[in-house]
């Protein structure tokens, strides 16, 4: 069968099971768009290519499959850079397809020519330029394998215009992937494995540090079994949220810079840390010199390059989280850690005192109230896609995720503007799910053009803007560390409700606490997208906070009541 390169690309994507492409057309990718028009692929027209990559990322994170983004050469491709780096830092399987100028113009500074493979080399798992139609199918098939194997990550395929236009024979079987014959390492190290077992069976104050690797491995059930058998409490990284039910008594919550005080204290007091699918990010450890000094450390990790990178460990097991936990399980003795668990419970204090809902209504609206109410009304069943900043940390603290892949957030890169487009991607991946965007007034203004995408595609997404009139997290740092000199953080925003109306989306402003639940319920009850503009307390801060570079136990607590870390009376 004779097909053009563009048609081969579409055929290949269909063969691979792709149904959605998030993209933006342009000169160097036009042949592909012409072929998309004749294919079964659903192309979602974005408003900015950064949005396309975040959508593909959100799509991938919601399901674990590969998300596909597309753009033209030059500025189309460079606009993808932030989204690609976001996917890279959070190990998200995204395939980006970019058009490129014709192969005979390569290197000539032709119109809209940019060396996108050179630019994205350090922020992709792999990238490749295709200059011949006959290489397209094989390369794209390889890209899908690379993106979603081992530790996942983004792959960029740059296809020259002449390769899209040329005609060649297409036969699926003849285009089988031919990846380089890499050495397969035998990572099994019995000595390390035995040491890990011995440490686990002798620890008195152990804590599990659970990361996103558990979800990437699909190991939630094995992990739960491991927790039940070993009787070890679980602390989660931000991206690990959802790997173990938040409402389970063995789940302590999030650790790190804005982790709950008892979680960080437990880590500092622990005699053993079992890290699973996490990478000891600086936001998790604080000062490495004082990090968990009393603890032996075991690291289960698929990426060999992560071992001993930040924290030196006593035993390392390289491999898939689920497989490794399953291998360990038969060797783990059931142990009674009741004294240790009781001690942590004591650190936690009275949860009734801590419950922000039991605070008297002073008329002030706090972000934590909004997020806690959102959790209660949605019964924890929504996919929540957050942006980056204070609202993101409050979400992690007050929306209790029991299901994996229900919190979608930019952790490693901390990309503002991520939430709205990523939520659109998540909605396409899981059309039956209830999707909420939780976003600040700053981040929302970075990618709010994608409201038009929501309208054009007629999708149902609920948007909760946590509007405090500041770039809140930066303001908080200025309050704590720069003597309240609020430089460049007060933020003028449009009337978001009116803005939503201009796009054809229902928008509402919420200013009091008593309106929160009815408004959330009202938004859930409609078939169309709704935007809620929550005007919250302007100068609230996220507590506790471990200042950057400080020790994990050196937390700044809420001044008047450390048990009520958030939303206490001013």
């Amino acid at each position: 069968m004779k097909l053009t390169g563009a048609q081969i690309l579409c055929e290949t994507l269909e063969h691979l099971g792709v149904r959605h492409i998030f993209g933006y057309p342009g000169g160097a990718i036009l042949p592909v768009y012409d072929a998309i028009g004749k294919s079964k692929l659903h192309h979602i027209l974005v408003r900015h290519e950064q949005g396309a990559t975040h959508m593909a990322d959100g799509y991938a994170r919601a399901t674990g499959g590969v998300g596909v983004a597309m753009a033209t050469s030059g500025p189309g491709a460079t606009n993808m850079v932030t989204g690609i780096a976001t996917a890279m830092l959070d190990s998200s399987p995204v395939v980006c397809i970019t058009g490129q100028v014709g192969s005979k113009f390569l290197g000539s500074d032709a119109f809209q020519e940019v060396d996108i493979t050179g630019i994205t080399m350090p922020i992709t798992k792999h990238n490749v330029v295709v200059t011949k139609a006959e290489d397209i199918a094989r390369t794209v098939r390889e890209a899908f394998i690379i993106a979603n194997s081992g530790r996942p990550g983004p792959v960029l395929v740059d296809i020259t215009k002449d390769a899209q236009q040329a005609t060649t024979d297409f036969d699926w079987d003849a285009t089988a992937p031919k990846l380089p014959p890499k050495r397969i390492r035998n990572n099994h190290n019995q000595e390390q494995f035995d040491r890990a077992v011995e440490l686990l069976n002798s620890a008195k104050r152990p804590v599990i540090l659970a990361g996103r690797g558990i979800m990437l491995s699909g190991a939630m059930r094995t992990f739960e079994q491991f927790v039940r058998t070993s009787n070890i409490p679980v602390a989660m990284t931000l991206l690990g949220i959802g790997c173990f039910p938040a409402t389970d008594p063995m789940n302590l919550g999030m650790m790190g810079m804005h982790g709950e005080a008892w979680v960080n204290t437990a880590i500092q007091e622990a005699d053993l840390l079992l890290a699973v699918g996490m990478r000891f990010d600086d936001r998790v450890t604080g000062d490495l010199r004082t990090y968990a000094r009393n603890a032996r450390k075991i690291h289960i990790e698929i990426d060999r390059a992560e071992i001993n990178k930040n924290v030196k460990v006593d035993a390392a097991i390289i491999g898939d989280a689920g497989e490794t936990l399953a291998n360990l399980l038969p060797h783990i003795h059931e142990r009674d850690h009741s004294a240790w668990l009781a001690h942590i419970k004591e650190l936690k204090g009275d949860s009734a005192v801590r419950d922000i809902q039991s605070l008297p209504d002073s008329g002030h609206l706090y972000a934590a109230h909004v997020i806690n109410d959102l959790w209660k009304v949605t019964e924890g069943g929504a996919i929540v896609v957050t942006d980056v900043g204070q609202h993101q940390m409050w979400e992690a603290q007050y929306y209790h995720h029991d299901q994996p892949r229900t919190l979608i957030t930019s952790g490693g890169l901390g990309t503002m503007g991520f939430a709205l487009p990523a939520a659109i991607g998540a909605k396409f991946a899981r059309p039956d799910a209830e999707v909420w965007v939780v976003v600040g007034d700053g981040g929302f203004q970075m990618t709010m053009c994608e409201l038009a995408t929501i309208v054009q595609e007629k999708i149902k997404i609920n948007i909760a803007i946590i509007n405090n009139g500041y770039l809140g997290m930066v303001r908080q740092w200025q309050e704590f560390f720069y003597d309240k000199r609020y430089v460049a953080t007060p933020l003028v925003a449009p009337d978001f409700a009116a803005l939503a109306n201009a796009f054809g989306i229902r928008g509402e402003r919420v200013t009091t606490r008593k309106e929160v639940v009815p408004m959330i319920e009202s938004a859930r009850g409609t078939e169309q997208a709704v935007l809620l503009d929550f005007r919250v307390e302007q100068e609230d801060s996220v507590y506790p906070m471990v200042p950057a570079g400080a020790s994990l136990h050196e937390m700044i607590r809420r001044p008047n009541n450390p048990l009520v870390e958030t939303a206490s009376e001013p």
Partner: protein
Amino acid sequence: MQTIVAYVENKPGVLNRVASLTRRLAINIDSLTVGPTENEEIARMTICAHTDENGARRLEASLEKLVDVLVAENISDRSMLERDLALIKVAADQQNRPHLMELIKVFRGRVVDVAPESLIVEVSGTVDKIDGLLEVLRPFGVLEMARTGRIAMTRGGDLLRPPTAASNSSKDKDSAPASS
């Protein structure tokens, strides 16, 4: 100094990826050599880096994460041979030429070109040996020098060979995209 040997795909851009990685890890390369192997699709690299054992371990592991790197192995602690090759152009006239030749002989160098005012020495061996010859030649006036950088190989039966295509055919299976 750490020595890493890598087998890589012999195609454009791979050297760039390796160099870009060392830059990203903030590891300073002392020498990097690339040459073909008996298999024309595979090239062999010797990377000598200014880093400690942990840095080398990270570099080795990160190199193997690159799709085009088939094997990367730190051989610093293994019994191995290291060779560097240099061409050194030294100022030499009729008077001091015999004396120079004597010195070069001690270092097992070869004179490969003689001109009225200069000569070219070819010398191979360990870095120390070449540095030693250079030290001796410097007073005569070193006019020009080219060095290849180090290549290294483990001794005896300690073989470091690229894997073959048959060894990993199982992973060439199409990956499923997102589905709801």
